[in-house]
């Protein structure tokens, strides 16, 4: 390739070429796709899943076993710390590292189940609103407006406060409050799909509406739904952590990152490690989810063709 003599020009548009763009012209498209999966995000997610699934084999200690003699031991690199408890212990002598590893279970379950429920509900409403339009659409849209304006934290806390904290209840509350983000976008897509020719043909040839929805519209909006879902996993995890932090989450002594944060807050002044490590765990996990969701959205974006 001829060395460019015109960099000056390109800057006239305020642009500069993308570095690192592959100049290859090999036709190995699929392999390229695989290579493009963001490594960091994939690593984080896999790590999370491993912790969640294999916790009994990975965790050095039992997460609920109390050992008051060893309470509030700092991480091993500080004075007074022991390599037995790599990240220190909490006020009841439980190993922080093990609790974090087991805490991944709660996060994974809440993340996926929450996204599943809210996603299914939200996508369903979105498809119905987009396809049928008219009064049904207006009603659903008003409903989403109302849900959007309700301060969801308050609602969630109020509901859990009444029906009692438990993992199942959290997932239910998440499903009830978080479906709105799906509905708007799916509705938009369903609307444009409904105007397309092959839907018109299906209608003309007498296909029943539920078949059209199921077979024609749903698979095509699934792309967006999946992207939204991936982006939402992080939100769910933070939500659960927030509820657990307020004491409205998973019941102790089950290890949950949010609950650990609540404990940690009490001992903040002299045992910083109780609160710090679970928070790092949450942040990294959510970051992984967001990175993956962003990548997925860019991949599936039809405008992706010429964007470098």
């Amino acid at each position, binding site marked *: 390739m001829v060395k460019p003599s015109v960099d000056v020009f390109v800057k006239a548009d305020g642009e*500069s070429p993308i570095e690192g763009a592959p100049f290859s012209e090999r036709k190995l498209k699929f392999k390229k796709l695989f290579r493009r999966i963001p490594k960091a995000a994939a690593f984080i997610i896999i790590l999370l899943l491993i912790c969640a699934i294999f916790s009994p084999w990975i965790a050095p200690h039992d997460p609920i076993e109390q050992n008051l003699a060893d309470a509030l031991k700092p991480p091993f690199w500080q004075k007074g710390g022991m390599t037995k408890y790599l990240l220190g212990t909490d006020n009841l002598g439980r190993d922080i590292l093990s609790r974090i590893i087991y805490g991944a279970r709660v996060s994974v379950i809440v993340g996926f189940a929450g996204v599943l429920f809210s996603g299914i509900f939200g996508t369903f409403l979105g498809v119905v609103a987009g396809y049928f339009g008219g009064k049904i659409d207006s009603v659903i849209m008003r409903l989403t407006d109302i849900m959007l304006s*309700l301060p969801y934290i308050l609602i969630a806390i*109020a509901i859990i406060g009444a029906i009692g904290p438990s993992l199942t209840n959290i997932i239910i509350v998440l499903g009830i409050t978080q479906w709105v983000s799906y509905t708007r976008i799916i509705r938009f897509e369903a609307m444009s799909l409904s105007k397309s020719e092959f839907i018109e043909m299906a209608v003309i040839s007498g296909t029943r509406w539920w078949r059209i929805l199921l077979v024609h519209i749903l698979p095509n909006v699934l792309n967006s739904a999946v992207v939204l879902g991936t982006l939402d996993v992080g939100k769910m995890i933070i939500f659960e952590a927030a509820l657990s932090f307020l004491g409205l989450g998973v019941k102790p002594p089950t290890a949950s990152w949010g609950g650990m944060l609540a404990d940690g807050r009490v001992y903040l002044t002299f045992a910083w490690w109780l609160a710090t490590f679970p928070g790092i765990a*949450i942040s990294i996990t*959510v970051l992984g989810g967001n990175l993956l969701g962003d990548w997925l959205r860019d991949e599936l974006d039809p405008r992706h063709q010429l964007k470098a």
Partner: protein
Amino acid sequence: MGAYIIRRILQSLIVILGVIIITFLISRVLGDPVALLLPPEATPEQRAYLTKDLGLDRPLYIQLVVYVSKVLKGDFGQSFRHQEPAMKLLLDRIPASLYLSLIATLISVCIALPLGIISAIKRGTIFDRIGMTLALLGQSIPAFWAGIMLILLFAVQLGWFPPSGYGGPKHVILPAVTLALFFSAATARLTRSSVLDVLDMDYVRYARLKGVPEFVVIIRHVLRNSFITILNIVALQLGLLLGGAVITEFIFSWPGIGRLSLDAIYNRDYPVIQATVVVAASFFVVINLLVDIIYSATDPRVSRK
């Protein structure tokens, strides 16, 4: 333009009405006010009396109508816990929450808008990549944990700021920064993508083709056209702040409506919960309405037919 505004106002009213109805239904479903107000030893007659007095023996829809008409006048009833009207309790705390929200918004806007705009203009450069990575990080860190870490660092270790409580700049800065963390991260990313959308528009390229200097193109064409979208984004976040600062107010013992409602939930104080939800939701709806009105006034495609 007039028709558009009227339609939006009507929509907003419907939403607020819907919110009021939902709060009514939820609190009815969740608990029996009579049981909450009376001590356990109360006799059946006392219960019956209170039920009648509170109007709870009438059919549900009549209760609903009564409730809605009262709420529209601002009457949420007496707080169960304190002997004052729920609305008054709320109004006492609103200034504190508003103060916190506005400072948080100010901080966010000062960080997020320049970050988002410059990242978009310098798309693909190091600045863009680092900026957006930081923004992504900011969105991934749970606000309440960030608050705790800030307290740890600045209040406990360094002692620069007080760890909690209400007051002037020294007190408000840590909670405001905590709230601003997520707010500015999300705003920066959304700003960047809306500016990018405008940058790709034909009229921007055409302005350059006319020979308009780049700087002017950015200000006159790009920023002017992204303005309303960015305003929308900021308003959306601000609207959510009033009701969404619950945990932050809790951590920093900030006497706002978030803390009030949290206590109310622990105490099953339904009038206060209802009042908070309705007011927070209305705040959100009104802000969005205002943004839409500004939009219809400034976009010539809507304001002139």
